[in-house]
């Protein structure tokens, strides 16, 4: 084929040439071109290779339905595989590369697959590659994988950024062709808020492609009409929600500063008007995939919109009056039309007239049997035995309404015999369909269906990209894959990147013909979002990398960073894991120092992240009684109590201390991890289960910064700030540091004398700085999560690794907390037999028999001397830590009948880490079991 640029015509700007590269070769196009039109204008016909047989392929269409002309666009980290040349807006510096070929597009060694095509039929792989069995993963599969696929992913981080945005409207018009422009204007003039979304970079749709059509309607400057070009509506979702991708900067080599590459729009529309036009169908004849065989409508687009002659001598093959239009347009552009081939025995008057006017042979009642020429069409053989030389075949098998979006919510398209097409059936609520998308092809549209040319030689392609032929459809029929979904899945028809836009209906119709069932009985076409493939990055938007999820920082974050904190993600929070002092390089050294400081002097840590819920109301105590296993009505004002919650299914849920601030006022704390879940649970309890209770709840997690002060010298440090003295589990509301409101709690999870001090969050940093200054004389040391974990471990307090949703209160040694005097969430289900089974693993302490042996969480516990099999699995290690006090690794674990086995040696079996350690079963309280330090 010898494509070339016409001297005049089209909407391109011949004054603005644009330089680009394809396969390393420099070319020139014009502003207003697509990559496809620029390639055709530059005489490039061979653009890609097919998926399975690696057949040479050119450009079939001029729109998003393109199955053949897929390229790798851009390079380096911005490489975009499988990009349709027909929708890429030409820009300066554009670089594109052909794909799925080696070593070059013209000489592709994988084309040998074409020779093996008698074997590589639909579904062939299900029938072979089974011998020998071990060869599948080692030999066959790697070969198939390498041969398959299309373009190459960049495999490095996408350097561009993306956004998501939301917009609302009364009417969303999808498509700015004649019908869409009309609909948008009517709605906007009626005062509706209108969004007009058009995938192309200019408005007009089919108007741009047809000669002699009115210029684009003037939309004017209506403030309530928002026009969004380069915006593809990709999906319909429930409640009038539409997804659209705006290609903000894809027409630039690199997005501008602060410019996203693409933007996902969530469009919320009361009504939608689908005006997406129609997509032309190819005809299935022999070797109909040769470069130079194009859709007739696309030929007109290239001629009329882009001023490109896609060939110099054309044969037009159409079963409808598109043939006549195409002949006329080619002729008008000065392109020779050798013949108009029309399978209808009696072509329409328009057809006859067009052929005559163009001086073209009219071959009526005749079909093209086969196109010849390897890298481009050379001639065509007709069913009447003649051969016609040509370098362009313009074919039209009729048109399919672009009804994809109508079926995204399950609407079933309906077969319309008159236009031999599916038309929209059930519609999404609020959607109407207009123009060609509704099957309105104009009053003159006549078609004589032709799904396949019979008696052809060569391959008659139905799905060009996936190399599915008429013979493949026949094979599927023969083997019983007759349901339309079986046909698709067995042959891969319609499963390629074009999602069958040019092939589904034809394939279905051929199946109907072969089985004699008729098209409606064979099935219907269904489509899934997105309408055209959409960049995954756009759906992520801003939320990637470190912005994947928001980061919560406590008011003391900056101070902790100054102190050498190494932070760790705990849910959305960043918390100090440990504090590296100069000269320290590992977490264990730092943690040991921090633990020792708490045990021997005083430590300080930030506990702001614990969930804090303010609970008030006449029934506040009753409410707590119902949500905690233990009782609250007897808790005096000014005191705290440890509480345990179960889920309604009887398993342990969360724990924490709750303080009574007043007769009808409590302050609950939850674990950091469960704060949100507990909040929602309590909201359910008070608003759904027991709306009669007078209970008010407010989260005060963010209002208060909270610091724990622990260690034998903690009272000394606290005394520098306040003269309030508290009993164990006491609480006081007071002021410190010149009038800052404060809440003091005497609580301990470390077994040391300990306090928690809460101040309004803005004062949090000042509080820690003051405490550090006052504590300096006592050796105050900041400690992090590792030390917190170890300190509580030494005291046998359970945390998330024990409260893992699979344990009961009894497992954790907390059964005695469960009040028998009241109902509470989870009480009844906790009594089920398996939850009170004495064989259940229960909480124990574990200590290696050999000093220095390392323990790790997740090791399983087996009886000593027993073989390592599931039958001997008796539990596992939940938490571990190194105790500098004991000079040993210690652990908590859940062990079957563990409480009866103190002193026994069991195996901590950890094959995934290559460890197997004898450990002694001990009390879970390793340190100061009498609790003397707490009160000392």
């Amino acid at each position: 084929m010898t494509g070339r640029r016409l001297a005049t015509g089209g909407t391109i700007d011949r004054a603005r040439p644009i330089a680009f590269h394809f396969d390393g070769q420099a070319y020139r196009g014009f502003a207003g071109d697509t990559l496809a039109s620029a390639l055709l204008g530059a005489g490039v016909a061979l653009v890609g290779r097919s998926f399975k047989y690696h057949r040479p392929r050119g450009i079939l269409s001029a729109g998003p339905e393109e199955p053949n002309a897929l390229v790798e666009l851009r390079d380096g980290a911005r490489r975009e595989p499988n990009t349709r040349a027909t929708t890429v807006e030409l820009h300066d510096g554009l670089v594109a590369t052909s794909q799925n070929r080696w070593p070059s597009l013209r000489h592709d060694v994988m084309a040998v697959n074409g020779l093996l095509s008698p074997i590589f039929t639909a579904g062939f792989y299900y029938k072979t590659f089974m011998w020998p069995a071990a060869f599948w993963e080692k030999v066959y599969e790697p070969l198939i994988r390498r041969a398959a696929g299309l373009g190459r992913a960049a495999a490095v981080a996408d350097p561009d950024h993306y956004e998501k945005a939301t917009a609302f409207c009364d009417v969303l018009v999808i498509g700015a062709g004649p019908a869409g422009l009309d609909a948008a204007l009517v709605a906007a003039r009626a005062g509706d808020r209108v969004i007009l979304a058009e995938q192309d970079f200019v408005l007009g749709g089919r108007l741009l492609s047809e000669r002699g059509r009115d210029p684009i309607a003037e939309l004017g400057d209506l403030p309530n009409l928002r026009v969004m070009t380069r915006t593809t509506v990709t999906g319909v979702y429930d409640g009038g929600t539409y997804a659209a991708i705006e290609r903000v900067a894809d027409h630039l080599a690199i997005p501008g500063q602060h410019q996203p590459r693409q933007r996902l729009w969530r469009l919320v529309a009361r009504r939608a008007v689908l005006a997406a036009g129609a997509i032309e169908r190819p005809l299935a004849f022999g070797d109909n995939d040769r470069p130079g065989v194009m859709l007739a409508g696309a030929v007109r687009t290239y001629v009329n919109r882009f001023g490109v002659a896609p060939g110099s001598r054309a044969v037009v093959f159409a079963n409808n009056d598109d043939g006549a239009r195409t002949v006329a347009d080619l002729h008008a552009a000065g392109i020779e039309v050798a013949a108009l081939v029309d399978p209808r025995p009696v072509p329409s008057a328009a057809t006859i007239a067009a052929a005559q006017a163009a001086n073209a042979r009219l071959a009526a009642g005749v079909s093209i049997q086969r196109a010849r020429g390897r890298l481009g069409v050379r001639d065509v053989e007709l069913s009447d035995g003649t051969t016609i030389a040509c370098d362009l075949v313009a074919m039209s098998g009729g048109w399919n309404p672009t009804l994809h979006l109508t079926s995204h919510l399950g609407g079933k398209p309906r077969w319309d015999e008159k236009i031999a097409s599916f038309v929209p059936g059930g519609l999404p609520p609020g959607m109407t369909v207009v123009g060609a998308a509704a099957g309105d092809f104009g009053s003159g549209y006549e078609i004589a269906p032709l799904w396949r040319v019979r008696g052809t030689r060569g391959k008659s392609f139905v799905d060009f990209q996936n190399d599915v032929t008429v013979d493949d459809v026949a094979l599927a029929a023969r083997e019983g894959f007759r349901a339309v979904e079986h046909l698709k899945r067995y042959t891969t028809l319609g499963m390629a990147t074009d999602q069958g836009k040019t092939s589904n209906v034809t394939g279905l119709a051929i199946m109907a013909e072969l089985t004699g069932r008729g098209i409606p009985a064979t099935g219907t076409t269904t489509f899934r979002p997105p309408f055209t493939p959409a960049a995954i990055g756009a759906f992520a938007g801003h939320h990637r990398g470190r912005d994947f999820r928001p980061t919560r920082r406590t008011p003391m974050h900056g101070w902790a960073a100054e102190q050498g904190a190494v932070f760790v993600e705990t849910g959305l929070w960043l918390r100090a894991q440990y504090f590296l002092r100069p000269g320290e390089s590992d977490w264990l050294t730092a943690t040991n120092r921090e633990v020792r400081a708490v045990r021997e002097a005083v430590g300080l840590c930030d506990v702001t992240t614990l969930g804090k819920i303010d609970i008030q109301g006449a029934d506040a105590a009753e409410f707590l009684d119902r949500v905690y296993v233990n009782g609250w009505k007897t808790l005096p004002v000014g005191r705290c109590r440890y509480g345990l919650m179960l889920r309604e299914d009887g398993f342990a849920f969360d724990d924490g201390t709750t303080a009574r601030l007043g007769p009808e006022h409590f302050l609950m704390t939850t674990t950091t991890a469960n704060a949100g879940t507990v909040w929602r649970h309590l909201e359910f309890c008070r608003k759904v289960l027991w709306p009669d209770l007078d209970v008010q709840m407010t989260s005060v997690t963010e209002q208060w910064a909270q610091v724990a002060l622990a260690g034998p010298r903690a009272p000394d440090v606290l005394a520098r700030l306040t003269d309030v003295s508290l009993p164990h589990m006491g609480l006081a509301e007071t002021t410190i540091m010149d009038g800052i409101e404060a809440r003091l709690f005497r609580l301990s999870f470390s077994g040391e004398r300990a306090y928690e001090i809460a101040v309004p969050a803005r004062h949090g940093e000042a509080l820690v700085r003051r405490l550090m200054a006052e504590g300096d004389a006592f050796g105050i040391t900041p400690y992090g999560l590792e030390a917190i974990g170890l300190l509580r471990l030494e005291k046998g307090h359970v945390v998330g690794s024990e409260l893992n949703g699979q344990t009961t209160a009894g497992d954790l040694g907390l059964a005695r907390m469960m009040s028998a005097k009241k109902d509470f969430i989870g009480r009844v289900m906790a009594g089920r037999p398996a939850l009170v089974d004495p064989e259940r693993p229960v909480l124990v302490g574990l200590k290696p028999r050999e000093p220095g042996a390392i323990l790790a969480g997740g090791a399983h516990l087996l009886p000593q001397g027993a073989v390592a099999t599931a039958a001997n699995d008796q539990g596992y290690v939940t938490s571990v830590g190194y105790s500098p006090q004991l000079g040993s690794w210690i652990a908590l674990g859940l062990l079957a009948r563990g409480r009866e086995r103190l002193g026994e040696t069991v195996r901590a079996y950890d094959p995934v880490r290559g460890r197997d350690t004898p450990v002694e079963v001990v009390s879970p309280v390793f340190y100061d079991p009498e609790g003397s330090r707490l009160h000392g």
Partner: protein
Amino acid sequence: MTDRFSIFTLLGEALSGHRGWKPQWRDPAPKPHYDVVIVGGGGHGLATAYYLASQHGIGNIAVVEKGWIGSGNVGRNTTIVRSNYLLPGNIPFYEWSLKLWEGLEQDINYNAMVSQRGVLNLYHSDGQRDAYARRGNAMRLHGVDAELLDRDAVRAKLPFLDFDNARFPIMGGLLQPRGGTVRHDAVAWGYARAADRRGVDILQNCEVTGIRIEGGRATGVETSRGFIGAGKIGLACAGNSGRVAAMAGLRLPIESHVLTAFVSEGLKPLIDCVVTFGAGHFYISQSDKGGLVFGGSIDGYNSYAQRGNLPIIEDVCEEGMALMPALGRLRMLRHWGGVMDMSMDGSPIIDRTDIGGLYLNAGWCIGGFKATPASGWCFAHLIARDEPHRVAAAYRLDRFATGRLLDEAGAGADVALH
């Protein structure tokens, strides 16, 4: 006519224009009565029929399917197979399933492309590492392969994951090398063909509209193609279990939820194993055709609509980008929904019901595909012998009353958390 698949029959057919292939399963008219009727022509139902015929010598079997076989979740899933479970009630079952996968092609003479490319679950915290160690050790105790990888090992294997700018840094992963993927549709077709060859009637476009119960015993199914009598009836219609069980007056500990799956455009080989993101629900692998197949969590509301909504679609893409920032420029080709039987502890049910002759196979949550062979094997065993198979003994309906739950996630009776 060509029946058995071999390289010779394939070559022979290639030389004769593939004219000799015959339908992979017949399209018979329903008989008035079968010894066993399986409701549901999905993977589990077809596998059940095949194993009833091949392992228990039952010949007179029908599989009734309201649409086309494989139209449910066996044709909609993300093709992952694995046995990396935690609980002793689950591991032996899924391991048996993996063993059946390993021998499937030879057993049913159909290449379902069982590809043991490895399943890697990433961890992002110490706690998660220990939880995976617990799981891996449990697997090893059951004789299942499991390896705990550190960050460097993961990086060597998958250098394009986000190791340098991640909100939740990757610390390592639990690898099951024998896990992998299977060509999902081919599983349904392969079992159908193999069952058909043993005389099983596969009745497509045959929708069950009622279950006839006489004297406390199920005696047959009313269908869109008339009444079909049955000695025993097995329900294997996950997604619709609640709906079908209701025909027999049963209420189940199951909610139907929608799970969205995604595929990208075809690409040259990029990811050579299955990877799951530990800071979310995202998982991804690459099909032999080149598409990246991925998904995330369920939408989280009851649905039979086989389609999800934008928030989860966005969420899945966010998680995908967080794990693998090279995904940004790759394109989502299609997303679709499947209806999941979400059971109240996240584990399945293979059990008798209170109605004589009526058996239930349900509650597969988001993980039914990998279970297909063992589910069929064990359900066939239950139906044929009226006693649970050893590896499926925990999948009893009464576990909710006794509390012998199989709650791998520790999430309780909240399906959105499994």
